[in-house]
């Protein structure tokens, strides 16, 4: 990628690339973690993730609308927004998993992908039915967060919060998988579902819970981004492929993979924008293709050779 063109002397640019890269990586990670979790456990490449993101964003926008009128303190409003967004995710998760996916477990992986694709198409229009075609600004949290000046550069505090949140999320995920009972349960299922089933783990329950968590994470992604973007139709589509790329780079189903993938893409993109804007469009897919060629299963997943 264009990284080796970084001119060491230009400290500010280097710093900007780093910060922008981190912010973008944070965004990508928050968007991708739910996707990779669901894939890891359920082997479902969940296109509906885009809808979770969109609904989370719309939910958050609605919430912001509420508290902006009620003029609560910003921090409270922020949390209310996140909670509301995730609540939306929770509801959707339950409905989809119990109401639909349950019916297609055990079907061909790709067929399940298409089920989620179909659901995504439907939900796109459901958005119109619920919120109408208009766009929803939800900038209040972004504005009230203010900004910090560093030399010529001005950083938005909200972005800093975003990075912190992503870091927190990564930490939490690590802790949960390592030290909680459910987490270890998940790791077993991710590692080898047959054995897990053999050990009498209630895989169905694990699936339900995982999918709901994944849905909530997807919605959370939308919720935290809502203040930065104009919440409008079609925001889901963009996110899907982006998240797919990150997950494919890091390795499907690998949390640390999603983290590293997000960092790589984030930094590469920032570097591209600062140094060679022309290639910005290719960065993500370029990196993705490159990684897949070298490591077919992504950076953090190895193929287990079949025993005969």
């Amino acid at each position: 990628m264009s990284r080796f063109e970084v001119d060491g002397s230009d400290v500010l640019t280097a710093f900007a690339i780093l910060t922008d890269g981190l912010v973008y990586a944070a965004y990508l990670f928050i968007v991708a973690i739910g996707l990779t979790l669901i894939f890891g456990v359920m082997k479902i490449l969940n296109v509906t993730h885009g809808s979770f993101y969109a609904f989370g964003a719309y939910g958050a926008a609605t919430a912001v609308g509420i508290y902006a009128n009620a003029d609560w303190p910003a921090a409270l409003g922020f949390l209310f927004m996140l909670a509301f967004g995730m609540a939306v995710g929770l509801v959707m998760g339950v409905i989809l998993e119990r109401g639909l996916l349950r019916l297609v477990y055990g079907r061909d992986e790709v067929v399940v992908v298409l089920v989620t694709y179909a659901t995504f198409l439907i939900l796109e229009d459901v958005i119109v039915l619920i919120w109408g075609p208009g766009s929803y600004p939800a900038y209040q949290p972004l504005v009230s967060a203010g900004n910090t000046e560093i030399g010529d550069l001005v950083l938005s505090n909200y972005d800093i919060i975003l990075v912190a949140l992503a870091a927190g999320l990564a930490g939490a995920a690590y802790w949960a998988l390592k030290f909680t009972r459910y987490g270890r349960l998940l790791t077993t299922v991710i590692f080898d579902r047959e054995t897990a089933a053999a050990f009498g783990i209630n895989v169905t329950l694990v699936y339900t819970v995982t999918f709901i968590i994944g849905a909530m994470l997807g919605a959370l992604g939308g919720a935290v981004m809502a203040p930065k973007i104009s919440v409008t139709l079609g925001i889901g589509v963009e996110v899907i492929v982006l998240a797919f790329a990150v997950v494919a780079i890091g390795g499907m189903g690998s949390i640390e993979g999603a983290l590293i993938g997000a960092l790589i893409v984030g930094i590469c993109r920032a570097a591209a924008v600062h140094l060679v804007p022309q290639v910005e469009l290719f960065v993500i897919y370029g990196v993705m293709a490159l990684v897949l060629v070298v490591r077919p299963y992504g950076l953090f997943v190895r193929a287990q050779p079949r025993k005969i």
Partner: protein
Amino acid sequence: MFLIAAAAGPALPDWVVSLTTIAFSNALVVLGLVVLWRAGLVSFGQALYYCIGAYIVALIGRWAGFTDAFALVLLGGVGAGLVAALVGALLARYREIFFAMLSLALSMILYGVLVKTESLGSTDGFSVTTPTFLGFALHGDKLILALYWLTLGIGAVAALAVGTYFRSIAGALAAPIRDNEIRVEFLGVSVTGIIHIKVVIAGVLGGLGGALGALTIGHVDPNMAYWTTSGGFVFVTILAGAGSVAAAFVGSLLFEVIRTIAVDVMPGLWQMVLGSVLLLTILFLPDGLGSLVARLKKRGEARS
């Protein structure tokens, strides 16, 4: 089937004819996906070949001023086939979702390149020069009809060819490869080799479809390589099912009809209609229309 459709051509209103033409050019791409799907492979980047086929036709018309429909379509197929042979060498090493993702990445890269090429109108694309048929320049409904017949002809040939392929060793190995690659290797065949062939066949079909599409639509743009286009093709593949070759054509036709009716009846909500159709197909017709055809066959035999 094709003969009936061909004969019916002149009787049908133009808009039906052109709609069918577009549907059948898509059907070629779908046929390619069926070839892959039988071996358990799905490409989320088939739009790559569709777009290449289309742009080859458009560019030759634009730069070389060469407009013979038949030759152009063949060139589209060959060009896409060559690309498929190239990337196939890489793709053949991948399976399942990874195969899908890599093909997706490749098609998105082409999309990016085309968006970047402002000389070709970027996302606006550019129009395709009206084709000639063996030297005859046709217009209006004659042109539409000619393209319709060309598409039917190529469709029929492709259908026959793919049918024969399915009956060949390489074709018959689809299920075994899906079932048990190791055994296939120990029977003395290179699995990668077989898959490579499948990728190329799918590529050629995709190119042909794109070429015909470009001529019928009269316009090409980078969206032809965008992942949603691929998604649409996979959509139809599921609708049709891998059961029979004919299903690919019937499926595409049905899809176009449903879409156009949906847009007509509920302009704001046609995506929802399509999504529901796909969902219902997967839930209640797991093997797609193909299986329905098969069932009808069985019932027919039962009666006689």
